């Protein structure tokens, strides 16, 4: 039997040099004239060990990492193809604490399978949700999704089943599914990992959404910064068409469903759903007034489900195992699991899928192992650039939408950016305002003008000019932006700014 080396094809692995490692493996295999198959997999999301390669030894995947180009010869010398000993040997992937202690309902295939192999996908439980969806039909699918308690993972945490039901109840000829793959928040990469490591999962979720609401056309709005996602997802769509699982009469049923990928153009605001729809229509990504909701009048004025990648990727397991099974995970009104992303100054950064309800402390220290620099962690920003900065005194906060809201923070898309004690919070507050100024769509004044004024005011505070007066001014400005902005871009920017001042006044010369 041929031996197999599994090497990830993933943006982060690529960033850490996996392409050179791959080339070196080919070179060495050729030189040694040994029979080895190389299979490109997705990533396990253990980013700090990338490039992480695995070998199948009697059905168990043995991990080695992080592997550099210069390690390849010695790895082969050490007979890793049979699980041989080597300083880089970690042991069975599934025994690594980081993986073992997760609850992977969505990411259980990631890293193990070839993302584009339909048979791999099926052997590991793929398409069971779709199968059941086809059997039970729209109404029962809606019931399952409503019962699961699933809320949108893109940031706003709106109940997915309710959104779908609104579109279902609208009686028109054409409806759309739009997948929001704009993933603009710094510190987040779970959408990317779904698309690169398990693209059929997203597509399965989208087809189920289509069946549920009666939509036959779908768009995936993918950010231009993810070229590998575009490649993998593009191939996955193509392969499903060839298999008769997209297009007309899916799997012999009377269901038709088309999917098209559209590429964004580097505007953060296009992650906001109405701006995204404008962009899909070929326009400037200016935010629309709501109402009407996209579920009533969305893309080209038709009822549209806009859902985040992870939201849609959570649907297949709900259909396969039932809403009640999914709902069993989590706490309070946050049901199921969220793939948290540990980013920034963290020793063991990567993707941690867990049920809601663990504490920041647990995720930062038990999973993350503390800061990368070894210095104390001073603060974390959760939920992207519009999320509040949280001080260490609040690290016992449980990861749950409502608990976070209570401390004036948000979970958003589950990104956790870690900063050690060298961070200057006045700089971070300034950056939050500057980012808003750069990315504002310009439609409303509080955001468009406010963010520029805000940046100037913080500059004055930073240079020690009339500190007290300018702090008051900033406070007023923040209130105006929060209360009078048309969307959450201007409306939430005050949160990182004001939380930085509140928790770290010493950085503002106060």
């Amino acid at each position, binding site marked *: 039997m041929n031996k197999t080396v599994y090497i990830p094809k993933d943006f*982060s692995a690529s960033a850490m040099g996996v392409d050179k490692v791959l080339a070196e493996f080919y070179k060495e295999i050729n030189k040694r004239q040994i029979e080895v198959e190389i299979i490109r997999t997705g990533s396990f999301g253990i980013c700090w060990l990338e490039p992480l390669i695995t070998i199948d030894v009697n059905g168990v995947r043995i991990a080695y990492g992080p592997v550099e180009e210069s390690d390849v010869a010695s790895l082969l010398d050490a007979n890793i193809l049979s699980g041989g000993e080597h300083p880089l040997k970690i042991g069975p992937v599934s025994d690594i604490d980081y993986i073992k202690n997760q609850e992977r309902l969505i990411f259980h295939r990631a890293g193990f399978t070839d993302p584009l192999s339909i048979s791999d996908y099926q052997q590991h439980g793929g398409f069971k949700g779709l199968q059941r969806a086809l059997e039970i039909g729209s109404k029962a699918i809606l019931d399952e999704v409503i019962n699961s308690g699933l809320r949108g993972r893109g940031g706003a945490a709106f109940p997915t089943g309710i959104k779908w039901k609104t579109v279902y109840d609208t009686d028109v000829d054409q409806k759309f599914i739009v997948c929001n793959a704009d*993933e603009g928040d*710094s510190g987040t*990469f779970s959408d990317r990992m779904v698309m690169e490591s398990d693209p059929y999962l997203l597509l399965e979720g989208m087809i189920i959404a289509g069946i549920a609401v009666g939509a036959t056309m779908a768009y995936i709005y993918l950010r231009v910064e993810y070229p590998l996602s575009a490649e993998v997802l593009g191939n996955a769509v193509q392969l499903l068409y060839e298999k008769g699982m997209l297009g007309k009469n899916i799997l012999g049923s009377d269901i038709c469903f088309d999917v098209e990928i559209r590429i964004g153009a580097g505007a953060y605001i296009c992650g906001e759903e109405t701006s995204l729809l404008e962009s899909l229509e*070929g326009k400037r*990504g200016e935010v629309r007034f709501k109402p009407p909701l996209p579920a009533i009048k969305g893309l080209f004025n038709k009822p549209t489900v806009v859902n985040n990648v992870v939201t849609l990727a959570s649907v297949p397991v709900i259909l396969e195992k039932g809403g009640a099974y999914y709902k069993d995970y989590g706490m309070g009104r946050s049901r199921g699991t969220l793939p948290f992303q540990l980013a*920034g100054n963290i020793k063991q950064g990567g993707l941690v899928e867990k049920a809601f309800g663990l504490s920041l402390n647990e995720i930062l220290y038990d999973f993350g192992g503390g800061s990368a620099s070894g210095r104390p962690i001073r603060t974390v920003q959760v939920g992207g650039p519009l999320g509040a900065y949280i001080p260490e005194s609040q690290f016992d906060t449980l990861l749950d939408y409502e608990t976070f809201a209570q401390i004036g923070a948000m979970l958003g898309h589950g990104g956790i*950016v870690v900063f050690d004690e060298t961070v200057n919070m006045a700089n971070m507050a300034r950056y939050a305002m500057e980012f808003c100024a750069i990315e504002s769509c310009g439609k409303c004044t509080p955001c468009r003008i406010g963010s520029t004024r805000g940046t100037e005011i913080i500059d004055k505070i930073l240079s020690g000019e009339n500190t007290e007066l300018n702090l008051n001014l900033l406070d007023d400005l923040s209130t105006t932006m929060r209360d009078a902005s048309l969307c959450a871009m201007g409306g939430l920017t005050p949160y990182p700014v004001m939380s930085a001042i509140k928790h770290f006044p010493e950085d503002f010369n106060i």
Partner: protein
Amino acid sequence: MDDKPLNALKIPQKLFDEYQNLPGALLPLLHAVQGAIGYIPDDAVPEIAKNLNLSRAEVHGVISFYHYFRTSPPGRVRIQLCRAEACQAMDSASLEQHVKSSLNIDYHQTTADGTYSLEPVYCLGNCACTPSIMINDQIYGQVSPQSFDNILSDLTIVEKDQG
């Protein structure tokens, strides 16, 4: 593009034909033009507008709204440096300073010899291995000033090898 290479200002009718009937065709078309030519020349705007039945102002408005679209030629090596929080947490500021001073350009500029252009980017989704940069379509993680120099010299060697 499979057939003839596009010369700077002439967009083949074939490209328009391909996108004309697509709903919301403007962004895909602009991507195709920039993918082929490297940027969207001002002279192309009237032609794009005519073919998609839009006004010039609309086309111009869209091009200027999106950071990714550019109206001047990029350098051969397009460097995108992440400015977002997860990279800042790992001192991307030092990297930024180093890149700017060693190339002697600021953001949105191209070196005089047309080799490098530098652009800010807000997150590349490599947030667990920061700071990140992207050069053309290749991503690099945990980039230090030192490793940035190595990356550039590797690129130069490859370019020389290819003549």
